[in-house]
């Protein structure tokens, strides 16, 4: 029952994210847009390029979907409203997110097309940049909660949300989460207007539909993770807990889209340099500061 409820919430979130994304791209809010888009994609042809790595080409959208669903499965919407309350939840989220990279490499390599291949390997470079900025801030969150269980992490924010307790970690995680979900301005692997679709270039019809659904779920998952780790999860007055989680998640997703539409796409060299020369030292500083805070404030 819980599983069905959470899956329904995830699908609703993905729908809302699709509406938000269309709004960010076209400037128009069409509540029915994703339905039309899905129905249209189902009815279009979906071709496999010749002499491809067919296995990769077919597996990539499905793997992306599985990764997004599994990442969201360990994140709670309310007390008790979580599919799997895993003892290593915070680590498992990371593990699931790591397969986003695998899926994109497969999608890039599969069709034997130049634009897609460049897009796929670009994302590997992007991961080398953002990955530490996902892992290290989560470590600081776990330090405060003394646990990797996601529900315990929410409970640990009973007094002060982590966005206040460790703002530096939040900023780093937020940026890295956008890069993970290859949202603009970190959409290097797809890069509309630069790589003519990149890893998505050869996908059409039903396979593109699955790819887009998986991507929307991935955005929900990263927004939900941000909510759980930094925005106090379901905590909030007046409304029921699940409503707070939903609202915060949507707000995070909307903030990501709004920010993305106003920033130019980063250059890969810049992104890597910033992540390693600025981001990682700051993330270590964050761990240190949180370490002092945890010891100083019992």
């Amino acid at each position, binding site marked *: 029952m819980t599983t069905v409820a959470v899956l329904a919430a995830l699908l609703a979130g993905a729908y809302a994210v699709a509406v938000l994304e269309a709004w960010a791209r076209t400037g128009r809010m069409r509540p029915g847009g994703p339905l039309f888009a899905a129905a249209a994609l189902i009815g279009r042809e979906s071709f496999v390029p010749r002499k491809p790595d067919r296995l990769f080409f077919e597996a990539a959208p499905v793997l992306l979907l599985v990764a997004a669903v599994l990442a969201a499965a360990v994140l709670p919407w309310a007390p008790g409203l979580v599919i799997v309350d895993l*003892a290593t939840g915070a680590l498992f989220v*990371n*593990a699931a997110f*790591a397969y986003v990279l*695998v899926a994109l490499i497969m999608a890039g*390599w599969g069709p034997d097309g130049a634009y897609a291949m460049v897009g796929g390997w670009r994302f590997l470079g992007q991961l080398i940049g953002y990955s530490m900025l996902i892992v290290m801030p989560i470590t600081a969150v776990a330090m405060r909660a003394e646990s990797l269980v996601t529900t315990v992490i929410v409970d640990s924010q009973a007094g002060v949300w982590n966005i206040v307790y460790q703002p530096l970690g939040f900023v780093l995680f937020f940026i890295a989460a956008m890069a993970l979900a290859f949202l603009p301005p970190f959409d290097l692997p797809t890069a509309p207007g630069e790589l003519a679709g990149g890893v998505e270039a050869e996908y059409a019809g039903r396979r593109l539909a699955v790819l887009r659904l998986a991507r929307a779920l991935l955005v929900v998952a990263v927004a939900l993770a941000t909510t759980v780790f930094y925005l106090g999860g379901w905590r909030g007055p007046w409304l029921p807990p699940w409503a707070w989680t939903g609202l915060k998640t949507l707000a995070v997703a909307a903030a990501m889209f709004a920010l993305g539409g106003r920033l130019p796409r980063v250059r890969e060299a810049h992104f890597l340099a910033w992540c390693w020369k600025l981001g990682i030292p700051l993330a270590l500083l964050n761990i240190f500061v949180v370490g002092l805070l945890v010891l100083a404030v019992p």
Partner: protein
Amino acid sequence: MHAQTFFIAFFGLAAVWFGVAVFRTSSMVRSALALLFSQTAIGAMFLAMQTEFLGVLQIMMMATEMSIMAIFMVMYMMDPGGLGAMEMTHQKRFSIAAGAIGGGAALAVAVLTPWGPVVAQAPAAAQQTRALGLELLGRSMLVFETAGVTILTAMIAATAVAVRRREGKAAR
């Protein structure tokens, strides 16, 4: 219990199957990702054996590390797409012998070591992580710090190789 045995066996076979796939393909990327999924299956085996932290860690780390292996293979190997259907194996007799000896040795260690009494119930997953942390900060602190130094050595060695290459002294 039966389910547990079944899943251990299932993922074990999956790991072996992917492991074989590593050598049955001539595409470097396929080969690297087959190795990745072999390692993922081993991680799933760990989960089935109720060692949660280890399992999830394995599943997480292999994804990125094997992908990086894939790009290095694509950078340095001939015909990484396997378009020429190149035969990837060589020195077969020697490899088979080495594999058999290595496998036998591992089995012998597994069978002959006195592992002590079997614990009836695995500790709770959260408890395992805690215990691992306490171990790292207690008895195994030296091991832990040594690991740090080892990693540092690896970083310096890798960088030194890369830097030498950049100056073009030895392009291997």
